């Protein structure tokens, strides 16, 4: 079945768009062999991510079932999730100390 966006691992809180998605568009969200309807809140470019659940400030962002960063603000379900609301935890010479 064709899907419009993919969740790679069940515990992930972001999905990746497989085409440009318009605000309030109802899409098919795939995970493994399952697919479910979902509505995004804003325009998501091909390849960009959106949250699939409400994410709190400071919460880990999970993709591939792994931590890819941390929310720098609340990210409501269906919002574009990218550098404006996610920071990296690695290579942060600006923070002065090693974090992991």
């Amino acid at each position, binding site marked *: 079945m064709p899907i419009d966006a993919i969740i790679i691992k069940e515990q992930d809180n972001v999905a990746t768009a497989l085409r440009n998605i318009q605000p309030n568009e109802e899409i098919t969200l795939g995970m493994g062999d399952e697919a479910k309807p979902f509505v995004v809140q804003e325009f998501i470019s091909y*390849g960009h991510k959106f949250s699939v659940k409400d994410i709190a400030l400071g919460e880990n962002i999970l993709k591939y079932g792994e931590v890819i960063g941390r929310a720098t603000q609340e990210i409501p379900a269906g919002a574009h999730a990218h550098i404006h609301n996610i920071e990296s935890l690695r290579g942060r010479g600006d923070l002065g100390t090693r974090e992991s």
Partner: protein
Amino acid sequence: MEFNGYRRSNGIVGTRNYVGILSIVVCANEVTDAISRQVQGAAPFMHQQGCCQTPVDIKRVNETLIGLGSNPNLASVLLVSLGCESTDLNDVAKAISKTGKRVETVVIQDVGGGTRSIAAGVLLVQDMVQEASNIKRVPCPVSELVLGLKCGSSDTTSGLAPNPALGIASDLLIEAGGTSILGEVTEFIGAEHLLAQHAKDPQIGQEIIGLVKRMEDRAKSVGADIRGGQPTGGNIKGGLTTIEEKSLGAIAKAGNAPIQAVYEYGVVPRVKGLVVMDSPGREPEILTGLAAAGCNVIAFTTGRGAPQGFPFVPVVKITGNRVTWNKLRDHMDVDVSAVIEGKESLPEAGKRIFREMLAVCSGRLTKAEISGYNKAMDIYMVGPVI
């Protein structure tokens, strides 16, 4: 399983049969370039190093040049020197000669300037190309292949299709007795714990973690967030948000084989199977490092469309981004976007990459070779220019 390659006198096998023209210092590049333009069948290696550097880096330039000259894709080698560089022409020439191949030298200050050096070099290389043309391809086992793994201009499609598909192709090569080299240590950051689990023993796992720490500490030493440099601006436009996300997608190209060993930059592996080599991910440095480590073929996945090849090692380009496949067809060799569209399985795509790679190793030209988009070359330096 076999491919048709060039078996050298020291037993190792090339997939191409060029005469290499290697600058041993940045200051010889003009002559190297001019000679290579005047002789068909010659491949130049030029770089920005070789003088006014710390002994650590000069040693690395010497060793990288020896590795490049010893690469089985070169039938013979001309070394071009200015005459006053820090690199050691005689050492480099002697070490490459040990492979059994013919090595010639041109020293610009001895010959008497660039013009005479170009003329002398052209005459030498003409003769070397003719000699090399007598060598014929013969059936060779795929266990002779040393595959370099590379991804570049990545986006979020890279981790979904081309990288895991290349991982499957790499596993197939290793099952057949071959070797794969994984570099791009910067792009292990955030995923090193998963790579370490693939290490054949805890010691190798610790070495992988150590390499990543060294690379990350070096990046952090400038006191800034590396985002923008890693992931790059292009990666970010393609939807990659953090280095961790980029890394988790990038390491998929290593497949599931156990990691047998960890090597410094440009070192020829002494074992078969999957190995890790220290290198950043930027194209000139990693492609050169893989060639110096003896790779006779490189597989390079891309999202947004990286065109770079290398002068004497075929670089197979693989994308999972349908837009890139359609827009940059002159640079792309394999399209695996059907995986993302649910029309092809990852194992099928992996087998397709493997077959394409074998065809290329037997002589099929890559887009980078056909277009001559193959000047991404330099040597990874760790110290300052002094």
